[in-house]
């Protein structure tokens, strides 16, 4: 319906109503253009409609553009077109920028989408770390390097005299002492000047803000990704609702492009079909539930013992490392004992858990969840024990600091006294002490930073070594020794390794937790992590393609995407805690770092508010920080959470009710059509109460019903008319068929879904 009104551009002959309707139509056509790719039509049809719609829009946008406000309208239209084009180009550009697409696609075609999901996760982590790195680098490291005092000018930036001869030694550098320790990598290098350079850059404030901003940004990104995943996954449906149908319709992975993988997939699909058929038939013969329960309790007890044991071991080793710090004659093992033990525990623990879990005999998916949970507990326990032990060390250093403070003041006084004694003729102030000679405090923050960096480095080394030995060497042995070995190494033990998805993902998640914890004390740690992720990507891609085989048992812990994100979120919170604790309650060292000389690290914020911001903001903040305001705000948020929770519960219930109603309605209709007794118990009871219910048995027409029932007609009105006629004819033969309480046939759709056969409109969901 084309508007044949005003073709004359000079006349304003269109009334307001017509104009409004025309505008509406134009909008509709525009919406059609935007959504045309959603329609499941053939390209030719879509093209035709697109051209029609575009023609219409072009023609009548021009017409609409005359008259009142036409310039504005035309301008708006042009801007909109430019904006759409810009958006499209930007989308294309963004897709072109994503790195490693080819690599991941190759892995996907050989190993399926679950292994590839690890690499996609790795790439996502790399992106997040890149942003964190640029934040830290740009706002903390670069200003200090460019605008701060150079190396050697103040005590905190200089290697002390005693250490200077060994400062360049390789062994000292790998321990991150020597020149490493007094560099931008660690907290201690940064000066506490309030403003530096001609730009008056506030470094201490920036340091604190970047530290907090790291957590804030990570939190935002993780939650956004979780929300996106939750949308796609459809939330938490019941696992067993559609097992068979899903196995049939969704089990094939269309990304598989390799014949060997396809064969594997066929085999695993067949196995899973057969298993579920057998499962369904058997129905859980419960042999001995007591024995099973006992075994499970035993297994959990053993695992708790292991966890406790590993925690104690770490504590013990940390204590020992503190004693070692006081000795000088240390071998390589003693110096790195802590990191080695922690990495070894991370390797051995999961294997031990898997062996013990054999006792439990859970379904593989549940067993996987337990396994992941236990590994998580192991890593968490280790990390926190490590932290606790570290805190002991920090407290010891804080004690030490008090003595050193006195000692350094005394040293300075002595130096001046000596100077005036030796040069009696000089007047004026004596020159300052050489920075290398000043007595230095223990600087606990740098120590903590060094510990985290060492832990990360050793973790990297262990991971890479494991891949090299566990996968590459194994593949080499199996391939080349197979020629001269008694049994078939490739088919039997040890054969080629499979890629351990969950182990690797957990490793990545925990590594990130350590980075979050340590980056406040060692700004260079994020840079190290970026390098690590980059090399990991190439190294692991190579290792997977060269040494691994596709999984035999391809079963998907597919909702695990959000599971891993949830883990990441948890780790984020847990690593936030120690950092916030130290910021709030531990006093910073007196002579190193950007907060030296203050009582607490966050004093820098209060200082900024007092000195740099206008005074009314200061009063505003002091009001906002009042507990009388904060506590009601927290209460309000708790109430909001409760409210949203109950609303979502209500929606879920309404959903279930509707589903039940749908089911009932369809059952009723089916029964009515087939002249069967009602299967709905309520209806049945009602029918039994009716007076004229005679005992005529259901007629033998039932036998020929299955043949007649499904005429192979094309969907459309004709087919349904045929059905209805059949029903009518049957009804007249069997007087007892209708239960008088069913609904009237009325304006019912001809049958669920028949009218939506071939692309005649979008399905009625969403």
């Amino acid at each position: 319906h084309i508007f044949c009104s005003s073709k004359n551009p000079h006349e304003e002959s269109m009334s307001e109503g017509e104009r409004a309707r025309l505008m509406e139509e134009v909008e509709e056509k525009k919406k059609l253009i935007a959504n045309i790719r959603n329609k499941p039509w053939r390209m030719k049809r879509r093209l035709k409609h697109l051209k029609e719609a575009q023609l219409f829009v072009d023609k009548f946008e021009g017409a609409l553009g005359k008259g009142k406000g036409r310039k504005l309208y035309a301008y708006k239209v042009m801007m909109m077109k430019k904006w759409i084009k810009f958006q499209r180009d930007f989308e294309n550009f963004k897709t072109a920028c994503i790195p490693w697409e080819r690599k991941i696609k190759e892995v996907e075609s050989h190993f399926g989408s679950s292994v590839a999901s690890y690499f996609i996760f790795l790439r996502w982590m790399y992106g997040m770390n890149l942003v964190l790195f640029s934040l830290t680098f740009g706002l903390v490291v670069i200003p200090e390097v460019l605008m701060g005092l150079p190396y050697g000018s103040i005590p905190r930036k200089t290697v002390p005299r005693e250490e200077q001869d060994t400062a360049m030694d390789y062994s000292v550098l790998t321990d991150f002492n020597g020149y490493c320790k007094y560099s931008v990598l660690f907290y201690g290098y940064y000066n506490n000047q309030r403003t530096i350079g001609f730009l008056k850059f506030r470094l201490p404030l920036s340091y604190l803000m970047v530290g907090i901003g790291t957590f804030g940004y990570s939190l935002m990104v993780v939650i956004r990704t979780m929300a996106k995943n939750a949308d796609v996954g459809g939330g938490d449906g019941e696992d067993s609702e559609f097992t068979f149908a899903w196995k049939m319709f969704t089990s094939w992975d269309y990304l598989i492009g390799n014949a060997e993988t396809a064969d594997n997939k066929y085999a695993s699909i067949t196995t899973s079909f057969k298993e579920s058929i057998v499962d369904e038939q058997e129905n859980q013969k419960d042999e001995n539930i007591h024995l099973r329960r006992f075994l499970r309790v035993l297994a959990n007890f053993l695992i708790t013992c292991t966890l406790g044991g590993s925690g104690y071991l770490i504590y013990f080793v940390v204590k020992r490392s503190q004693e070692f710090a006081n000795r000088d004659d240390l071998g390589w093992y003693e110096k790195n004992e802590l990191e080695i033990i922690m990495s070894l525990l991370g390797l051995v623990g999961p294997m031990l858990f898997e062996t013990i879990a054999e006792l439990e005999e859970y379904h593989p998916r549940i067993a996987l969840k337990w396994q992941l949970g236990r590994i998580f507990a192991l890593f968490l326990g280790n990390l926190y024990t490590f932290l606790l032990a570290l805190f002991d060390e920090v407290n010891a250093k804080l004690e030490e600091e008090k003595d050193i403070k006195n000692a350094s003041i005394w040293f300075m006084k002595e130096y001046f006294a000596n100077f005036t004694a030796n040069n009696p003729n000089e007047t004026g102030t004596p020159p300052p002490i050489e920075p290398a000679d000043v007595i230095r405090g223990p600087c606990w923050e740098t120590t903590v930073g060094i510990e985290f960096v060492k832990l990360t480095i050793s973790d990297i080394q262990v991971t890479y070594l494991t891949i090299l030995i566990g996968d590459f060497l194994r593949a080499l042995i199996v391939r080349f020794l197979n020629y001269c070995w008694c049994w078939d190494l490739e088919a039997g033990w040890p054969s080629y390794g499979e890629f351990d998805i969950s182990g690797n993902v957990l490793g990545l998640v925990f590594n990130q937790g350590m980075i979050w914890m340590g980056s406040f004390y060692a700004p260079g740690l994020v840079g190290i992590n970026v390098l690590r992720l980059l090399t990991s990507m190439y190294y692991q891609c190579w290792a997977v393609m060269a040494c691994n085989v596709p999984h035999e048992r391809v079963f998907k812990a597919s909702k695990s995407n959000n599971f891993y994100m949830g883990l990441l979120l948890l780790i984020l919170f847990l690593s936030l805690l120690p950092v916030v604790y130290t910021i709030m309650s531990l006093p910073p060292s007196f002579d190193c770092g950007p907060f030296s000389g203050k009582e607490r690290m966050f004093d820098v914020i209060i200082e900024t508010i007092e000195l740099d911001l206008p005074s009314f903001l200061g009063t505003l903040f002091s009001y906002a920080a009042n507990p009388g305001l904060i506590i009601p705000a927290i209460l309000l948020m708790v109430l909001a959470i409760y409210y949203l929770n109950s609303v979502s519960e209500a929606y879920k219930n309404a959903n279930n009710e509707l589903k039940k109603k749908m089911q009932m309605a369809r059952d009723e209709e089916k029964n009515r059509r087939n002249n069967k007794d009602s299967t709905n118990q309520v209806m049945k009871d009602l029918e039994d109460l009716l007076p004229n219910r005679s005992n005529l048995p259901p007629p033998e027409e039932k036998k020929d019903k299955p043949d007649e029932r499904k005429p192979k007609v094309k969907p459309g009105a004709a087919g349904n008319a045929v059905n209805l006629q059949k029903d009518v004819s049957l009804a007249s033969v069997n007087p007892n068929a209708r239960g008088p309480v069913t609904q009237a046939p009325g304006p019912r759709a001809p049958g669920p879904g028949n009218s939506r056969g071939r692309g005649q409109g979008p399905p009625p969901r969403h």
Partner: protein
Amino acid sequence: MGATASKLPKDQLSEYQELTFLTKQEILLAHKRFNELLEREDRQQIGGSRVPMNKILTLPELKSNPFRRRICQVFSTSDLRDGSLSFEDFLDLLSAFSDSATLEIKSHYAFRIFDFDDDGTLDTGDLEKLVNCLTGEMDNTRLTSEEMKQLINNILEESDIDKDGTVNLSEFQHVISRSPDFVSSFKIVL
């Protein structure tokens, strides 16, 4: 212009961007790959020519797919019903299987691919053929007829809401929309 392939004109390119879920790079890549499949003499007028089904099936992305023939037949607009694809059909295919395609599009096409006899519903015959495709070509991996019957019964029990012995489009879409795996596995990327 000898052996070099024809280039895609710019306005067609932007049209295709409007009409499909593909990005510019993906369309250009598809154009290149489609060109390679065409006979040399057809390469100049890519718009009109069709690639026969056996050539399409040599694509590495489709080679190992058990549904490759059905995919070609579903997306083909050829009057001869021989499964040959024109370039626009090929783009249709890639668009439906792309990452950004919606659940409705994917489930619609999945239904049509699984509907082996093209009658608008998935009945026992269709489901049987589907299972046989999934279990591979070898005899030792196929299911026995007992198992097949049991399996199909279970499936119909789960998905057939109106109990008419077949799965129609909306029942299929209902089942598929609850599946967390479907969108991520129903993907083909060149």
